[in-house]
């Protein structure tokens, strides 16, 4: 409700509100949809459609750390395809999935703007890593698990 009140007055308020909800609780729960819809005088379908259209929003809680691997061309040119395969194999999950211990959620991302020093990986909100080899990835995952 706080997320709604802080952004309600803005023109085009739905996008900032969904960001505020996800920033606060990590995802946009199905329970929050009718509330947001009611407050903005929208239908539930419109709000649900927003959440599912944008890759950034998630409908279920993520693991303790979200690890995003860039799949875009500049990173591919430096070995992102190998890194992607390595990550899925060693974590035992596919993209959009969470490890069984709830520690790591793996997501693809299409460009982090670090195209001169790929492969690029983003951990959490803003921890960007460059030139991530499979071995470096293992170290990052180890550190991410230890931090949670």
């Amino acid at each position: 409700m706080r997320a709604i009140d802080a952004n309600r007055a803005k023109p085009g308020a739905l996008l900032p509100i969904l960001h505020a909800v996800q920033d606060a609780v990590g995802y946009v729960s199905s329970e929050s949809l009718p509330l947001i819809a009611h407050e903005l005088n929208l239908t539930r379908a419109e709000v649900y459609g927003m959440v599912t259209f944008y890759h950034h929003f998630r409908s279920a809680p993520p693991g303790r750390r979200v690890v995003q691997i860039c799949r875009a061309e500049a990173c591919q040119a430096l070995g992102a395809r190998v890194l992607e395969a390595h990550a899925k194999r060693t974590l035992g999950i596919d993209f959009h999935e969470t490890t069984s211990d709830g520690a790591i959620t793996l997501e693809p991302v299409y460009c982090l703007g670090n195209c001169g020093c790929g492969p690029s990986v983003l951990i959490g909100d803003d921890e960007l890593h460059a030139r991530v080899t499979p071995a470096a990835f293992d170290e990052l995952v180890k550190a991410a698990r230890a931090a949670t």
Partner: protein
Amino acid sequence: MSAVKVFVPRDATALALGAETVVHAIAHTGRARGIDIDIVRNGSRGMFWLEPLIEVATPNGRIAYGPVKAADVANLFDADFLHGGAHALRLGTVEDIAWFKQQERLCFARVGVTDPLNVADYIAHGGYRGLRNALAMSGTDIVKAVTDSGLRGRGGAAFPTGIKWNTVLGAEGAQKYVVCNADEGDSGTFSDRMLMEGDPLCLIEGITIAGVAVGATQGYIYLRSEYPHAHRALNAAIANAYAAGWLGADVGGSGKRFDLEVRLGAGAYICGEETSLLDSLEGKRGQVRFKPPLPAIKGLFGKPTIINNVISFASVPIILDQGAGFYRDYGVGRSRGTLPIQLAGNLKRTGLVEKAFGVTLRELLCDYGGGSYSGRPIRAVQVGGPLGAYLPASQFDTVLDYEAFAAAGAMLGHGGIVAFDDTVNMLEQARYAMEFCAVESCGKCTPCRIGSTRGVEVIDRIRANVDREKNFALLDDLCNTMRNGSLCALGGLTPDPVVSAIKYFSEDFV
């Protein structure tokens, strides 16, 4: 004695390469040795192979060292780097490094030089001169200066910026908007990000000039959510611009109002398309609109709207400061001014090169790029993001110029250049182009939404050697349908990387 000034970039790539640990090490070592150090977090100079690149202000200019790791810091102190002392990592002044010296930095003149968030520093380096001039001019004259400069949209479509502004100027409406497209989603591009992190006030000034020119009082920067560092820099710079009276009810003491707000996207590539972006800003799914009406007539919330890319706006202050002729004198043919080119992918020396139009692809790849990072031959280059054609070595003499690229069946786009070495499999790259389109399609038109998925399947059948002739014909037909039947550039240009991969690298499709 006053504190020694040390510059350590807060650019996202510099951070990804360890700049934050270097800052901690410098601060810690300085304290331990009782030396007073003033650390300035600047933008990146754009030489990524030298990042983290730190600079020390000395009486003989700013002396650079790089690439610096936290482990090098104690050693640098021992070598008296605070007075420009000799060290294996010492690079001299950045302006004397050939890679940097040969550039023509207009848009990026301040990036890496100034404290990005400091308004006084910005003004000391020529900032707000353009807006000051603009405030003394009529809207018609401002638009005329932008038109005469020959500036074309740097987002990729290369539409003349002045003509767009003129349409908004002439449109009737009590409320008009200025929207900055900072949804830099193309792989291989990062000039918007570097500018927003390294000189956000330049972008803010450019957007404000646009508002003053057409009588718009509200601006929005639509920023992609993948850029958290740029988000922080923009918000801080906007707050500082408000505090200094360069935004708000009385811009620069002119009595004119202009407000500016950053809105965060949510990971949709299609929102880089201007009409999708406007729908997204309005709080809807980012779906492409039919044109006409043009956004200049009916844009954000149905009102007349200027919508331009970050680099387009950031090129405006210098045009209003130095004059249209100054800017126009750079470049070739109908491509006037400079382009911040981004060298990415498998190159030894990646980073940002701002040059007048007219440089060749080969100069950029070999002279600036220094060949491949892996040391293997460069086999293919993709220019202009995921919708750009793949070019082989035989095309490397193409000149960077919008028309020359179009003639080569490619596009310059936002100026990103991604190099691949000879380990690349071009069938896989063609398949990825279709896959990307399927992931990112907004779903409004059928050729893009369905065509991309069918495209992946057809390429898979070619890979599996099923009815090759038939499937190549089908792929060709599908590409034509997407090219001619799609509503916007996503579906319309996805065939370009696919068709060019088959044309130039047919051996990978055997």
